[in-house]
């Protein structure tokens, strides 16, 4: 046994020794190659770059340089966190690569260090990073946490920076994109991407219904342009129901699933999510019916209204009374059903287009609209949000971090994201340029994106997860069990009662959070925020 083990142990040791030697050699070449000329020096510089860029050897390289009495080529480190990762796809790798090279070319002293952090752990890792004195200097911040992070004192105020940077003034952005990064005059983030909830329409299915051709844009010769749906294709909720009914193809003898639609393939008019999505399915429709979910300060739920109850009733009726929806499915979201061609219309977001193109290999014709106005609504509505670039309160190099934010949130950064990630921008000048016009020509489903984002009310922003955990079980119950409620056997008598309970629970979350913020403020010695009503 010993005999069998010994040579393998020796081999391992030899390999380790060789690897260590290679690392040291690489470091030595790198440390010496900066000033040399010729092919060896170039190879050395390449090796040095490899050594310098690779995560595990990055700090070692700097130390070696310092130990050799040399000043590191890039003495300032800018730590950037993101949940997008260069390793996600080649597109992301190209995007981050170009951002890094542009920024470092303009700032020769700065070494941009990206760190990808999974979205689900982002908030915790940020807190841990701050506590462990290893926070990012600048990072992408979701609207989900932005307000909470700011209230915890984890974000730096950016008002002074914005004041001296004309290209990042508020008037450069569409209004709904600014909502989540400002509070009581404090700016804690600069929006760099904008998204909104939207209705996705399968244009091939609509095209197969001549009576619905009015929904398409017209070409100059008056014929319908089957690649583009009109922004105002749906007049109101009644009209939406009629369209969904027409797009639902069902065999009378069979339930909804057995329908014969496009190419003999069954499809439903609309897909409604119930499982775990109750609040998100409900809120954009409620916004289109004149309902606001919460107040600006995050102290009061504002949706305890008859209009909100009507919204929930409308959704339940679409499913149970008018039977225009595909069956509720836990294992497949409405977006997934849309993608597989089971439904003609589904709720998604303006972000979803590129994924649909990717997943259907460009074979599905689709378009997007905002939500049509309900009986109490004023015009087309949706919910809009804009993720932002933020600076941590413990940022070590604020000026450099601001320069990075300028690049990312400026027009140049927006165009980079369009080029590599097919993303639209919250910036107004972005939509005036040729690049966007070219993109819309190539991908006609983008035609309404700007208007959709612009008509949005703000997405829920205070204690998002806690609020959704309170609202979702109630709305989910109503959607799943409406026949029982209607028959008087449910937990609620009607939608108003369900909405009222949901609002009460949300208010309880807000009250608790308000107390928490006050205690934070007191401990930090800040002026406590004014008492709520």
């Amino acid at each position, binding site marked *: 046994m010993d005999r069998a083990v010994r040579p393998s142990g020796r081999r391992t040791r030899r390999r380790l020794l060789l690897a260590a030697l290679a690392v040291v050699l690489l470091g030595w070449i790198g440390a010496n190659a900066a000033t040399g000329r010729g092919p060896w020096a170039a190879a050395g510089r390449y090796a040095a770059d490899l050594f310098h860029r690779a995560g595990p050897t990055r700090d070692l390289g700097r130390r070696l340089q310092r130990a050799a009495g040399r000043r590191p080529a890039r003495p300032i480190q800018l730590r950037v966190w993101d949940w997008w990762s260069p390793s996600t796809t080649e597109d992301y790798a190209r995007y981050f690569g170009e951002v890094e090279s542009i920024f470092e070319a303009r700032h020769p002293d700065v070494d941009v260090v990206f760190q990808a952090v999974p979205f689900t752990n982002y908030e915790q890792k940020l807190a841990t990073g701050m506590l462990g004195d290893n926070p990012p200097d600048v990072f992408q911040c979701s609207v989900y946490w932005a307000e909470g992070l700011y209230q915890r004192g984890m974000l730096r105020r950016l008002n002074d920076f914005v004041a001296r940077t004309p290209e990042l003034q508020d008037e450069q952005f569409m209004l709904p994109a600014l909502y989540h990064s400002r509070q009581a005059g404090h700016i804690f983030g600069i929006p760099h991407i904008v998204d909104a909830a939207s209705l996705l329409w399968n244009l091939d299915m609509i095209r197969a219904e001549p009576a619905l051709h009015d929904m398409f844009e017209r070409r100059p010769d008056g014929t319908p342009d089957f690649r583009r749906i009109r922004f105002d294709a749906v007049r109101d909720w009644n009209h939406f129901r009629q369209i969904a009914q027409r797009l639902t193809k069902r065999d009378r003898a069979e339930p909804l699933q057995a329908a014969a639609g496009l190419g003999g393939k069954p499809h439903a008019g609309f897909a409604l999510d119930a499982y775990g999505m109750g609040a998100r399915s409900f809120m954009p429709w409620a916004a289109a019916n004149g309902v606001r979910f919460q107040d600006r300060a995050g102290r009061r739920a504002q949706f305890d209204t008859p209009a909100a109850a009507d919204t929930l009733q409308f959704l339940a009726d679409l499913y149970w009374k008018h039977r225009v929806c595909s069956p509720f499915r836990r294992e497949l979201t409405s977006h997934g059903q849309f993608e597989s061609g089971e439904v003609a219309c589904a709720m998604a977001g303006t972000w979803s287009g590129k994924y649909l193109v990717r997943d259907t290999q460009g074979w599905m014709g689709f378009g997007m609209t905002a939500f049509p106005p309900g009986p109490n609504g004023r015009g087309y509505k949706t919910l809009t949000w804009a993720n932002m670039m933020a600076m941590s309160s413990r940022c070590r190099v604020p000026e450099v971090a601001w320069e990075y934010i300028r690049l990312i949130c400026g027009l140049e950064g927006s165009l980079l994201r369009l080029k590599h990630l097919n993303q639209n921008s919250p910036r107004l000048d972005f939509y005036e340029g040729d690049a966007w016009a070219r993109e819309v020509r190539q991908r006609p489903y983008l035609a309404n994106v700007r208007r959709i984002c612009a008509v949005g009310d703000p997405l829920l922003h205070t204690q998002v*997860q806690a609020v959704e955990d309170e609202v979702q079980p109630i709305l989910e119950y109503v959607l799943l069990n409406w026949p029982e409620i209607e028959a008087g056997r449910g*937990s609620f008598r009607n939608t108003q009662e369900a909405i009222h309970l949901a609002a009460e629970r949300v208010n309880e979350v807000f009250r608790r*959070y308000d107390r928490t913020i006050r205690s934070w403020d007191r401990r930090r010695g800040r002026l406590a925020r004014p008492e709520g009503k």
Partner: protein
Amino acid sequence: MARGIGKERRQPVAYLYIAPALAVVLLFSFVSMGISFYVSLHQWDPFQGKGQFVGGANYARALTEPNSIFWLAVRNTLLYVVMAIIGVLGTSLPLALLCRRARYGQSLFRTLYFLPSITPMVVISLIWIWLLQRMGAIMDRSQTALLSIALVGIWQASGYNMLLFLAGLNEIPQEYYEAARVDGASRLQEFRHVTLPLLRNTLVFVTVMVIIGASQVFTQAYVMTRGGPQRSTEVMALQVFKNAFSYAGQMGYASAMAWLLFALLFVFILIQMRVFRSRRIYDESS
């Protein structure tokens, strides 16, 4: 012999040998538990530092606050534990008995039944969402949703516990069965009067482990139902997680809930150990 063992126990060097393991256990279990208890007495947020001392307020809130989900979560967790005990014992013991009797392919069956135990629960949950969705509305109704996640837990745990029972069964000397047969015992009587009493220790162990595992149920509830519908699968671990990591400033409350769960479990297991305590020692000399 006994003196010899006693002597060895008094060797101070033994403490040196166990010191590294003890240090790891102390650091990662007991120190963490201590910190968690400290946190439970505070209104605490990771970024806000030490936190404000609130005494037993977090405990009081969990136990007495109107609309507190704590008691609902306790009820759901206890129900889940009961389902898990019945389900796991009801499947793994018969499987072990059958496996033991199998003349051919015993290892194959053992491997097949054990496979779910080494499959990540997240994967299992995602697969079962599809399976259960095809079976109708079992996950949609608040009356049956908990049962649906219990089914998944039982399915995963049965194979592992079957192996424990198999080991226990193999420990039972064959002579007892032969003696029982000579006395004219039926198969059922053999099981009732020989197998069950001699499996008592394994039964206690499996039951305790199932109780501990089931009372910490999280993954199925998180992946399959997120606590719904209508909070019917809102279990303790899920509530602790949500409060600790999804709601701002609720880490103290979450820790208090975790300690209450611990206390509940501790009492539960003490009672169970007392009930099942074996007074007889079955070995060849007796």
